[in-house]
């Protein structure tokens, strides 16, 4: 792609359809809301689910593109990688909608801005995973982030929600400024914004230049903020804790998956530069894992515990990124290096899906057991005796906790196994060992929840909300977690294949 390619919109419409469906759907939901009187908003959630289903169907019907195809003159990729993340994002958004609606119904108080904002946030996530241009990368980050800021802050009459939204907004604005500065420097070096040109300019640049490492560092800071990498994690506990549970689930899974997708494309784009940052990135990864797990040990609120655990899980995923980066240096042959890189990339994709399933499951249980939006099922002590009161919900939460801790036969174990295996293959044995130690450490606080549920008698304040939809969804998610844990092979092969087909 040299210079501006003419945009042929007509031919690209079928491939663009998922994005268009979400954008138009978001507008339609807003309009329907504006013209529907009364307090009930059932039809909005139904419409939102239909829009998301439509986007998934459009993605399914989109014609398979040949390798290397980009849309709108290099702005977006039309590869398997973006298809993978589009379907994942749509699934996450659907589950979020179900949880949110079940909470709204319990209160009899709907939050109309939730539905369009969720659709726009999903649009931003999809575009972020598909972005192959510095400009579309930045705008996708902004679309996603702005919508999520409002989702976090928008819980009526909750000071903690407002505080969380404000913190996230201020720090997120800083991260955006870092990103913009980094992208501007990249553009200054390359003279073009599409990844292909930037890649060429990076390859052609003499080694002595300091501009590219600086740009790469700034971009890494911004994406590190979005995935909650230490030391850019400060916002995570407060925001995850203060946001309503249904939004926290979206943030922990959707935002993280999209940011990792963008990161995978960017590190692939800047190999020599990213290597300059390799030692620092390795140190930060170790810190991310260790910090998240150590602080999670002493938490008494489930949401806050899951926030610190999400920092730790970002660390495991960053281990995979390190494995991707390291393959070029250690492996004997190019073929071998490519094989290890595909294995690591596939492991990251697999883990992102598994992480989304188990985390959304855990937040689904919180949504299910909350009495109302003001009394979320947060305190871990409130789960005492849950196995007697609600054996089914307790069993699903136990599955999610086992999976988060990485205990077989759950998908969490397999996901971690693939990541650590790729890290070892990439020649980073000490890092893999440290990851396993961390994983053992984390078992303590996950299993504690199970102990409280199954072995402690209920006393004092207990969580006893109820929602059929949320309980059913959690059941399905638990089944999927077990299924992926028992027969992961074909799905992992799909993930590795997807990564291999990634273009930039």
């Amino acid at each position: 792609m040299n210079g501006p390619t003419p945009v042929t919109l007509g031919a690209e419409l079928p491939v663009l359809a998922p994005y268009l469906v979400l954008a138009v759907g978001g507008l339609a939901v807003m309009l329907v809301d504006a013209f529907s009187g009364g307090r009930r908003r059932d039809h909005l959630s139904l419409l939102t689910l239909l829009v998301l289903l439509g986007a998934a169907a459009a993605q399914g019907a989109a014609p398979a593109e040949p390798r290397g195809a980009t849309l709108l003159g290099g702005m977006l990729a039309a590869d398997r990688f973006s298809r993978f993340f589009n379907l994942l994002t749509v699934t996450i958004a659907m589950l979020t909608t179900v949880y949110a609606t079940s909470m709204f119904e319990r209160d009899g108080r709907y939050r109309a801005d939730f539905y369009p904002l969720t659709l726009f946030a999903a649009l931003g996530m999809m575009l972020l995973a598909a972005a192959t241009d510095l400009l579309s990368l930045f705008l996708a980050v902004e679309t996603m982030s702005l919508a999520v800021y409002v989702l976090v802050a928008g819980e009526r009459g909750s000071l903690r929600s407002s505080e969380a939204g404000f913190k996230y907004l201020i720090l997120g604005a800083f991260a955006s400024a870092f990103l913009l500065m980094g992208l501007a420097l990249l553009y200054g070096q390359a003279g073009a914004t599409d990844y292909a040109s930037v890649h060429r300019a990076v390859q052609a640049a003499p080694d002595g230049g300091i501009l590219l490492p600086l740009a790469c560092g700034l971009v890494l800071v911004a994406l590190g903020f979005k995935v909650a990498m230490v030391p850019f994690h400060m916002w995570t506990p407060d925001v995850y804790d203060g946001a309503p549970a249904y939004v926290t689930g979206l943030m922990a899974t959707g935002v993280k998956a999209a940011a990792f997708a963008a990161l995978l494309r960017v590190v692939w784009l800047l190999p020599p530069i990213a290597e300059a940052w390799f030692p620092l990135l390795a140190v930060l990864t170790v810190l991310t894992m260790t910090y998240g797990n150590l602080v999670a040990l002493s938490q008494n609120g489930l949401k806050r515990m899951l926030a610190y655990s999400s920092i730790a899980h970002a660390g495991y995923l960053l281990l995979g990124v390190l494995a991707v980066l390291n393959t070029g240096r250690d492996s004997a042959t190019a073929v071998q290096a490519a094989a290890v890189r595909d294995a690591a990339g596939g492991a990251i994709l697999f883990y992102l899906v598994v992480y989304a399933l188990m985390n959304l499951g855990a937040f689904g249980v919180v949504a299910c057991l909350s009495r109302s939006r003001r009394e979320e099922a947060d305190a871990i002590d409130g789960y005492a005796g849950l196995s007697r009161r609600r054996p089914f919900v307790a069993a699903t939460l136990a599955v999610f906790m086992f999976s988060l801790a990485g205990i077989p036969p759950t998908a969490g174990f397999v996901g971690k196994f693939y990541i650590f295996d790729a890290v070892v293959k990439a020649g980073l044995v000490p890092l893999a060992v440290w990851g396993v130690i961390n994983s053992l450490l984390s078992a303590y606080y996950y299993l504690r929840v199970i102990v409280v549920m199954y072995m402690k008698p209920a006393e004092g304040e207990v969580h006893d909300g109820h929602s059929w939809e949320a309980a059913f969804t959690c059941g399905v998610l638990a089944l999927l977690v077990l299924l992926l844990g028992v027969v992961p092979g074909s799905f992992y092969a799909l993930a590795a294949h997807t990564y291999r087909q990634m273009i930039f």
Partner: protein
Amino acid sequence: METFLFYLCGGLMLGAAAMTVASRSAVAAAVWLVFSFVCAAGVFALLAAPFLAILQILIYAGAIMVLFLFVIMMLQGPVLPAEVAGRTVGRKALLALPAAAIAVILISWAARGREASFGATPVTGTAAAVAELLLNRYLLAFELISIVLLVAIVGAMSLGRNEEGQP
């Protein structure tokens, strides 16, 4: 002549930007920012981008800063107490350090004559040229920005609404 004007505008812009950061009164900071934007418009004009220069004055120096000033005055622009400003000198220095580092890197990069490596093809920034780019090459960005703005408006509306009619 052009070089002289460029350095004049650029120098004034930097000075105004520094004053924006250094002012203790929010209103004064905003006015310095307006001045900085006007100088930036001058730089754009000298870089053969007249359309951008006009937009910079109309939108940034005009519309956005008027809105800024309204908001500051509505919130009764706080003046930072002197002792707070004095206490944070160390912190200010710490914050200035990365900015200074980036400035040094950029200046040294420019001084080494890397203009040649800047690959973008120069175009004259007339309205027609900008429109051509916006509606062709950058169509997605153009449309996406409208969604970003829409999300911002929805957010401002829903967060700013009062609690009437709550159960």
